[in-house]
């Protein structure tokens, strides 16, 4: 076990990480942020997507200790009342069904809009291409992200 001190959604946090523990397990069980989800542990589904120092990362593929000294953002850090434009757009566009991919999808979308406030449809598709959804057929998610971009512009 080694101590990991980092920033989670703007607040300083510290917890112990086990050898070989990935960031997903560390955030969920070590820190208690349950918003990133386990979908594969293989880097193939995107449900565990978080933002580390401004870049999207698959928490299941990142050693927990690598969070040391870095800024980690998760869906739990958007708006607890759901007032972030992306959250509003996902609700308005019925862009979630089971909701399991939603936190990761929101983080992929957020990273996109942070660097590209007015993305094209193709740029949205590229940005969410690492995040699988089995329910919606993606179209409502694409529509929600495009509409959030418009709302923020």
């Amino acid at each position, binding site marked *: 076990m080694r101590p990991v001190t980092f920033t989670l959604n703007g607040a300083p946090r510290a917890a112990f990480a086990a*050898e*070989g523990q990935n960031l997903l397990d560390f955030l969920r069980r070590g820190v208690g942020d349950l918003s990133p989800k386990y979908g594969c542990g293989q880097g193939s589904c995107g449900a565990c997507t978080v933002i580390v120092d401004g870049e999207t990362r*698959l928490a299941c593929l990142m*050693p927990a200790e690598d969070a040391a000294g870095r800024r980690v953002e998760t869906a739990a850090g958007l708006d607890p009342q759901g007032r972030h434009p992306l959250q509003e757009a996902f609700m308005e566009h019925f862009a979630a069904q089971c909701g399991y991919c939603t936190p990761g999808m929101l983080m992929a979308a957020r990273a996109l809009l942070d660097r590209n406030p007015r993305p094209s449809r193709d740029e949205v598709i590229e940005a969410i291409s690492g995040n699988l959804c089995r329910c919606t057929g993606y179209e409502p998610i694409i529509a929600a992200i495009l509409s959030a971009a418009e709302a923020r512009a």
Partner: protein
Amino acid sequence: MTVIETLPTLAEAARSGAPFFGGGTIWMRAVNAGEAPPRLVRTADPALRDIQGAGDAVRIGAGVTMAQILARGDLSFLHAPARAIGGPQVRNQATVGGNLFAPHPYGDFAVALIALGARAVLAGQGGARPVEEVVRDRARPPLVAALEVPRPRDARAFGWLKVSRVKPKGVSVLSIAVLAPREGGRLRGVRVAFGAMGPHPMRAAGAERALEGGALDAAAIARAAAQAAEGLDPPTDAIASAWYRRAVAGVHLRRLLEGMA
């Protein structure tokens, strides 16, 4: 249970004899599945993430990520193959060095490096070896410090194509990279490489022979397409059968070459 140990220098990592943990997209998956060896090593050496050289060749540290390459306007010739790796999250993590040893059906970036004639600088040994030789060494992969990648003199001389079933992020049915420099209307130093057409990225000797020394015209393209899969040994997997890969390798090579003509 695996320990991921960070050593001060690449040389020490090389000496440790333990497998090297690069970006982690391959090793962390194995760690999660309980399939990794007890010890993996890595280094925080910043040189691994350096990109140098504005001249004929660029030296790319083995720890440079696909996202870093995509952020560099001067490396635009590498953007298409870098974008073909994983999804955005994977590209923020996957490294150039790690891609050389990514097992089938991964490793498309190495295909581009092979076609470009890139050489791998090996840690602790000095000197550089052609990437197509290095990628063969699957059992005991050497520790790569950097890649020396010749810039194509003419952007049109380098072509890239990845065929996948899922868009925009999907693993390879196959990938193709072609370097086809022209001198006085004739192709000189043609290099054609395929991904997912063998146990590791490979050069397509038949296609190269068909193109070398001639014009990039319909006849040459047809000859290259006909010989595309010569000497290659495509695998069967969940994505496609060996038969299918062999059947369409020439079609896709022809389409790529037609776009470069």
